[in-house]
């Protein structure tokens, strides 16, 4: 019952928002949905809800964690959206090329935001590979109009790329799903995750490997693993900042969950060596590609997008290493989403005041908009994995696991890439924060500052202390995916 509410509530609210003409009511509805969705998720932490639809929809530890992350981020993004939508004019001039453009009507934007949340909740709760596929497809469809919020040719190109590349990826994932049914043709209900893991000895390993490969390529496209990440920088930089925050912090995770589910089947079927090695390879490769593009990146939102590619790589690497690194990888996922959400929202503030995305045109954020400046600087250290932020704990644990397992070359590459990326980002971001500004100090509204500050504070707390309930859930997840 609770699960049905979690999925249907945002969907119904989304459809309703489409027909509401009064802006105030629409925004209130968005906020109400976000708050009640978060409250429902909080309730799930206390009492784990019953499965519905013959177990097709059920909430396991991994689903709970992923859903919580997207719920928290959505709450922050929708509070930010209230301020954003009220200051966004109907027609405005492009900051780079000077032409005028309009926005997507607000009712479509708010409706799609909520449908997007609903689709993500369905991804997190699907226990059936067919349903999971439909849900991930639905996230693509719901998020495409969000990227095309500013109606001009660059965002149109970004949306086109996003839909085309991701739908090819999703097509390949469908092929993977078909091959999975072939591999498990001896099992009766062969798309249910629980059936597959319970009867894993009946699965044909060769076909399972082929299925895993297609899942990895298909959902990996959407997750942003290099070299399939090509849609990601454009989509993240052209969409409104709150959408970028959601894409980076919630959507990419949901696609990762798709890969984790098939990885789980591989682990139970004794094929974890194959899947782990692929995850390690793609993880390191994504980090390397991100490092290349972060250095000398002129557009600061694009830089953040490449940083997401890097962190998705770290997640894949952690799961690939197995053992304690799975725990660390899941912890990394939470902290990355919070930190990246905070950074994208801060980037939105910077764009609001400076009217540009070119990092060399931005100087003296700390002097002009101090709160955003502090967020931006703190965000740099948080995303680079400095103590006392949460990402330090997870990156250190992943490093340590690789070291203990004797993968010294992985350790070396990992550290070198992290250092390189930190240097690249620090150069850009510190130059933006520091320096003089001619415009003098300006006032930021509370709605702009509060959501990123709260996200930042949570990741700071998580760097110092992991609550017991979180440790328990993370332990359960690392047993499922741990390949131990």
């Amino acid at each position: 019952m609770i699960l049905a509410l979690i999925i249907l509530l945002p969907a119904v609210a989304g459809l309703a928002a489409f027909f509401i003409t009064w802006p105030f009511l629409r925004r209130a509805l968005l906020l109400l949905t976000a708050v009640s969705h978060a409250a429902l998720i909080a309730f799930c932490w206390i009492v784990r809800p019953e499965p519905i639809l013959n177990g097709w929809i059920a909430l396991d530890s991994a689903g709970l964690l992923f859903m919580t992350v997207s719920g928290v981020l959505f709450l922050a993004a929708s509070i930010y959206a209230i301020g954003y939508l009220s200051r966004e004019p109907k027609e405005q001039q492009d900051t780079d090329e000077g032409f005028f453009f309009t926005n997507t009507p607000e009712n479509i934007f708010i409706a799609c935001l909520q449908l997007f949340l609903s689709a993500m909740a369905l991804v997190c709760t699907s226990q059936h590979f067919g349903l999971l596929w439909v849900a991930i497809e639905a996230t693509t469809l719901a998020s495409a109009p969000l990227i095309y919020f500013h109606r001009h040719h660059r965002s149109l190109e970004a949306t086109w790329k996003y839909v085309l590349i991701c739908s090819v990826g999703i097509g390949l994932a469908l092929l993977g799903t078909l091959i999975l049914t072939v591999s498990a043709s001896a099992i009766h209900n062969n798309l249910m995750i629980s059936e597959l893991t319970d009867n894993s000895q009946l699965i044909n390993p060769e076909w399972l490997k082929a299925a895993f490969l297609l899942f990895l390529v298909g959902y990996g496209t959407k997750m942003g693993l290099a070299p399939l990440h090509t849609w990601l920088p454009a989509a993240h930089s052209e969409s409104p900042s709150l959408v970028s925050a959601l894409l980076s912090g919630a959507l990419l995770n949901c696609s990762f969950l798709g890969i984790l589910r098939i990885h789980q089947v591989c682990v139970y079927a004794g094929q974890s060596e194959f899947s782990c090695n692929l995850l390690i390879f793609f993880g390191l490769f994504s980090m390397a590609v991100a490092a290349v593009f972060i250095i000398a990146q002129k557009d600061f939102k694009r830089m953040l997008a490449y940083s997401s590619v890097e962190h998705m790589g770290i997640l894949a690497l952690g799961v690939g290493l197995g053992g304690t690194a799975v725990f660390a990888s899941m912890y990394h996922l939470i902290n990355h989403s919070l930190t990246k959400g905070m950074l994208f929202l801060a980037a939105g503030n910077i764009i609001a005041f400076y009217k540009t995305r070119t990092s060399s045109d931005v100087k003296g954020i700390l002097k002009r908009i101090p709160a955003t400046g502090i967020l931006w600087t703190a965000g740099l250290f948080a995303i680079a994995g400095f103590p006392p932020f949460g990402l330090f704990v997870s990156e250190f644990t992943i490093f340590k696991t690789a070291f203990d397992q004797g993968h010294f070359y992985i350790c070396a590459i990992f550290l070198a890439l992290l250092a390189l990326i930190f240097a690249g980002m620090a150069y850009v971001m510190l130059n933006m924060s520091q320096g003089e500004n001619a415009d003098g100090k300006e006032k930021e509204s509370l709605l702009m500052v509060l959501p990123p500050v709260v996200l930042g504070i949570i990741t700071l707390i998580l760097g110092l202390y992991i609550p017991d309930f979180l440790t328990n859930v993370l332990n359960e997840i690392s047993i499922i995916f741990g390949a131990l």
Partner: protein
Amino acid sequence: MNIADSIMILLLLTNLGLLASSRLNACIKTVAIQGLIVGLLPLVATKGPLTIYSFLLALLIITVKGIVFPYLLKYTLRSVDVRREIEPFIGYGASIIIGIVALICSFWLSMHIPFPDKILSATAPAVAFFTIFCGLFLIVSRVKALTQVMGYIVFENGIYIFGSALFIEQSFLVELGIILDVFVVVFIMGIMMFHISRAFDHIDTDKLGEK
């Protein structure tokens, strides 16, 4: 040679036709024919007497892929007023050669995969791989948005052929998914092309980045 084999050969020919053709009108026709043939697969793939389910499925696929999509594509073609795919990234001669190499690879691949015993036709997996390849190839090698959409439809057809070749019947959801997926994707792409053609007077996707 049975019906399934002849269908596979027809599908193969439509793919080669798509690789060779520069006229968008002809491409749309070929995609429509391919959609019709793919729509016949549920009837061929049913063991024993025809069920209502497989009949309805065939009807649905033929309607969507053989009639609705081609109509939408034609409509878009008229509204954006282009006739030919000019200057593709890879020329037509080269496309054919690449296609033939891919065809050989597909047969080689399907011969080296240990398929389950029950299979629609010996050529079916190879044709499925080749169709998937052709779809992806059209997406990456052609400039016009319209041709890319057709590439996507061909790609989806390939996945569908693969599914019916291996008699994957029980997953109704998956079959539903394919149709839903393509329908919505084409719908969205159609709307987008509308915007593209209105805003920029051309539908070349690689020119979207310029101004």
